[in-house]
């Protein structure tokens, strides 16, 4: 009596009850496919969101003034200081902040953009050339303003897609044309890549980017800064750069208690951390749901195997009368359930992986190899564990009792 014979009996038993075998497998197929698909969804969502965060500007840190009373328990609202050009200069000092690569002071204002009869409202963002890498802004056509434009306060502008569409016509590339920003003529030297809603505060597609010097001289005057965009030397240096910025600004703004800060440092790293925690909780939830469906599938196997043992009691009795040892009966039924669960598991893996190719909104599910290995392992375990009890019952039947059953 060897293993091959046991497997042959098991296969014959399964084939004799094709429909039932298929339905039993269905439970496992759904369970395993659910595990793979749901973990792939969680993983895909995580990767998508990570991509979005790096899209905000890798290594970049944004400092914005905190509005008075914005923080809980803040009592120093009256003494809040705005961000100034001097703050930006202090952060740019390599002595105080060795992990900072560049600093881009930002002046921001709302203005009407017009050409001929067309007018649209836009947000003018005046900054330095470092703003482009710092905010991860990409140019679809033309060139960014450079150091010379900045130094000479040239009235040049890069316009967002929405501004270009509204003022110069849909999908136009008005390089070299003149655009009136609050009636001040600027020359269009570039068009920004469309980013769509959600790339940070406001809509980046209605931005007009110009050198900070030109914006201050013609539109806002030489006042406070709207924000400061800082680039860290590397992703690893981001945390260090953040704490350097905090200590410089705390000193300059005379702040003792971090809760009283009149500015806020926002970085993609912080966002990523928060989202990471949220996503892992989310993934855990999905995995738990999938695990429940696996257990249900396993119970289905026990149920069917018990039915099978009961239904074939007489056959078991005959086999015992012909000299089948308990181990052969145990083996036959155990192998039956293991075949059901493993075959179901493999089909489930195929279905699960196949399911990830169904397009789902913005992000693509990414299959976790560990989930596949785990799912197959679990399906084998289910076969042994949930099939073990009925198989033991079958092997322990007394031959005379088994034979008497009709």
């Amino acid at each position, binding site marked *: 009596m060897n293993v091959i014979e046991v497997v042959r009996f098991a296969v014959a038993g399964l084939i004799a009850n094709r429909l039932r075998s298929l339905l039993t497998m269905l439970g496992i197929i759904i369970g395993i496919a659910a595990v793979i698909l749901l973990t792939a969804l969680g993983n895909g969502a995580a990767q998508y969101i990570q991509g979005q965060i790096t899209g905000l500007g890798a290594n970049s840190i944004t400092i914005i003034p905190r509005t008075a009373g914005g923080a809980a328990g803040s009592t120093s609202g009256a003494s809040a200081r705005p961000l100034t050009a001097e703050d930006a200069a202090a952060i740019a000092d390599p002595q105080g902040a060795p992990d900072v690569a560049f600093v881009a002071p930002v002046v921001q204002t709302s203005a009407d953009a017009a050409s001929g009869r067309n007018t649209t409202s836009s947000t003018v963002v005046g900054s330095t050339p470092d703003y482009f890498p710092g905010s991860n802004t990409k140019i679809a056509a033309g060139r960014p303003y450079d150091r010379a434009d900045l130094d000479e306060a040239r009235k040049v502008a890069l316009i967002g897609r929405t501004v270009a569409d509204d003022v110069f016509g849909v999908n136009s590339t008005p390089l070299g044309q003149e655009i009136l920003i609050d009636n001040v003529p600027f020359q269009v030297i570039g068009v920004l890549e469309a980013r769509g809603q959600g790339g940070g505060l406001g809509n980046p597609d209605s931005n007009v980017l110009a050198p900070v010097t030109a914006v201050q001289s013609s539109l806002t005057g030489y006042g406070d800064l709207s924000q400061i965009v800082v680039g860290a030397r590397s992703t690893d240096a981001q945390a260090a750069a953040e704490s350097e910025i905090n200590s410089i600004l705390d000193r300059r703004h005379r702040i003792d208690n971090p809760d009283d800060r009149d500015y806020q440092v926002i970085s993609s790293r912080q966002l990523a951390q928060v989202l990471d925690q949220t996503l892992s909780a989310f993934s855990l939830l999905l995995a738990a749901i999938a695990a429940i469906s696996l257990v249900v599938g396993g119970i289905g196997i026990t149920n069917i195997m018990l039915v099978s043992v009961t239904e074939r009691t007489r056959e078991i009795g005959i086999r015992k009368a*012909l000299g089948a040892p308990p181990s052969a009966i145990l083996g036959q039924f155990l192998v039956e359930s293991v075949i059901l669960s493993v075959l179901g598991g493999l089909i489930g893996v195929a279905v699960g992986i196949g399911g990830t190719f169904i397009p789902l909104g913005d992000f693509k599910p990414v299959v976790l190899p560990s989930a596949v290995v785990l799912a197959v392992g679990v399906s084998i375990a289910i076969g042994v564990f949930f099939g073990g009890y009925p198989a033991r019952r079958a092997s322990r039947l007394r031959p005379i009792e088994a*034979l008497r059953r009709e």
Partner: protein
Amino acid sequence: MTEQDVPVLDVRAMSKVYGEGETAVHALREVDLLVRRGEYVAVIGQSGSGKSTLLNILGCLDAPTSGRYLLEGLDVADLDERQQSILRNRQIGFIFQSFNLIPRTTALANVELPLVYAGVSRRRRHERARAALELVGLGQREDHRPNELSGGQQQRVAVARALVTTPALLLADEPTGNLDSASTSDVLGLFDALHRAGRTIVLITHDDEVAERADRVVVVTDGVLTERTGTVAQQSSIRSRATT
């Protein structure tokens, strides 16, 4: 004592009681039975007399409540479940009233089954199973499933299955109970041939005509065995007189 002298069956003071206390049913009461090699023994009795219980114990399908049972000189009570399954496989060939073939399985596979459990290689198994089917006259039907065979043919497959391991003992429980008269004489003819070939057969029946063919007839009445002496014909006449 030579091998030839060891009785195939040696039952001493064997009892079987179902249940306990006042509701206890004594199916067998301290019975003794000795069957020697090559004997053809018929056990007859009314239903409920205990003859099936006796056969089940002889076939190691059930355990006696008390007493000793030696099969080929081996005390069955000393064997564990696995050893008993080996004993059933090697020493005993069963033939049941309801044939008990495995459904949806070909005649050949049914006959091969005991050889599978005996660990015989596939090729030897095929050869021996074919030979056994030839012997019972079903060589042409090896690929038929039980539901494609008549009752008599199914019983012949069952006989082939019982023979295929060349067991020391053939146990038949009402083998003709579900068969018409033509099939009955078919199967009984087979038993006669096996008997002539030197097989030891213990057959249970309630049919005197079937019992007639045996060397020896043992009557079971309320759990007690009595050897019937004289010819079956005489016994029948005595009994018919007693009943009138």
